[in-house]
């Protein structure tokens, strides 16, 4: 299926979306639209449904009401969901300090899973090239053999971003990107996000509870309250 991309086309649109876990509805009649190339920040308190919103967009929840369109394609079936996930890079809110020893290179390359390698298909030369390229972009080339468990919070966040970018996404989802960062690492991250956004004209959706940071990075800021978007409260030039 070929999707014609128009500069003004919406990268993402949600209308009347309801979603949750079991009987608990976290999002209700949520509508939101994001233009291609736009950087939108979604602010909200803990429990407002920010992460659930991302999970709905990525088709990771069992029953989702309403309509979600991503890059012009309506997301209805698990196949649509897999397609969305192949177009989207997701930067999780994680410290990434798991128990498994894993090199920076491997941790980034795993972002290609489902894109070119999976199960019996092994990573290809192109997967390795792309991984090298993204390590360059985020400035971790020198640390490629380092164990992720020995990295600082800022370095881990750069690994997360490289792993999202290695999927060659059109849309980037950032989940509380600054949670574990000090002020200096935050500035580095802002520059990095700005740089990759311009480089690939990425559409960015960021959820945050840090209003100041959101306003600094985003074109537009909306609030998520009780599972609904309240728009127009704060427009950033």
């Amino acid at each position, binding site marked *: 299926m070929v999707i014609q991309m128009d500069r003004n086309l919406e990268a993402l649109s949600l209308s009347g979306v309801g979603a949750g876990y079991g009987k608990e509805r976290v999002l209700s009649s949520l509508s939101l639209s994001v233009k291609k190339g736009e950087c939108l920040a979604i602010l909200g308190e803990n429990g407002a449904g920010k992460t659930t919103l991302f999970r709905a967009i990525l088709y990771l929840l069992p029953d989702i009401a309403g309509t979600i369109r991503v890059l012009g394609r309506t997301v209805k079936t698990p196949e649509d969901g897999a397609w969305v*996930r192949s177009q989207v890079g997701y930067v999780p809110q*994680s410290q*990434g300090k*798991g128990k498994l*020893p894993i090199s920076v290179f491997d941790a980034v390359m795993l972002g290609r*899973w489902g894109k070119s390698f*999976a199960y019996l298909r092994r990573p290809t030369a192109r997967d390795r090239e792309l991984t090298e390229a993204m390590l360059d972009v985020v400035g971790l080339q020198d640390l490629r053999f380092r164990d992720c468990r020995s990295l600082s919070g800022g370095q881990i966040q750069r690994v997360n971003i490289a792993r999202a970018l290695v999927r060659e996404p059109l849309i980037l989802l950032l989940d509380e990107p600054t949670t574990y960062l000090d002020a200096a690492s935050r500035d580095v991250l802002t520059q990095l996000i700005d740089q990759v956004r311009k480089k690939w004209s990425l559409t960015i959706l960021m959820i945050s509870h840090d209003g100041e940071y959101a306003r600094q990075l985003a074109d537009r800021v909306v609030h998520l309250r009780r599972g609904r978007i309240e728009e127009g409260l704060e427009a950033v030039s």
Partner: protein
Amino acid sequence: MSIWEYLQIPVFQRAFLAAVVAGGTVSLLGVVIVMLNLTTIRFALMHMALLGGAVGLALGSTPLAGATAAIVLGSLLLGPFSERLRLDTGIIGAFFMTGSIALAFVLFYKAGVPALDVFGLFTGSILSLNQSDLWAVIGLGGVILLSYMCLFREIQLVFYDPEQAEWLGVPARRIKNGLLFLAGLSIGVAMKVVGALLIDALILIPAMTAMRLSRGLLQILLLSSLLGVATAAGGLLISMLLDMPTGATITLVGVGFLGLSMLFRR
């Protein structure tokens, strides 16, 4: 008797082959137990095995058949159960552990099951394996190797960051439950090979040693497997040479490797 003379005897041949195969493959699941926090679950499975043994005897079957059935059932149920109820595997493990041991004691009393026969499960021996046990060990070993070969990157993702794995579309839950099931079967095999009290020697200790020395999942797996073979086969040979109990000797060799690894700090 020299080792070569021992190895002319079918019982020892079978034991040696089982030690090599079980040591090389079952140890690959130790990393699963550590990574997925299944340390409590493995205790729960052992206690469920005890209950299964009691049920087996009460129904006129053998304790080992009952124990194996209980482990298979337990490892199939524990993963999905904990997800359904949104409880962590630790609590579920504790629930099943305490519950099954209590039920087993009720059964000992009510059905007149001789408790000592059931506790015999805790002292397995690699020298008591028959031909079909050996086939079971080889079959399980094959499935474990095949799982890692087909799902290496998926398993790496699930261990490294389960949340990432899930959103990338990796069937993380099914992989976790599958690995838990294999770990359960391995506990069953290890009970037969070294006895229930010493299963860690075969499953957990080689992996723990490997994890101290490795830089990535592939290294952990290769080293676990090598150490598993060295532990099981080495322990068996040493026990024959020095006339020591096999299960305990195998365990001591494993613990010895772990001790040595503690001298090296990465």
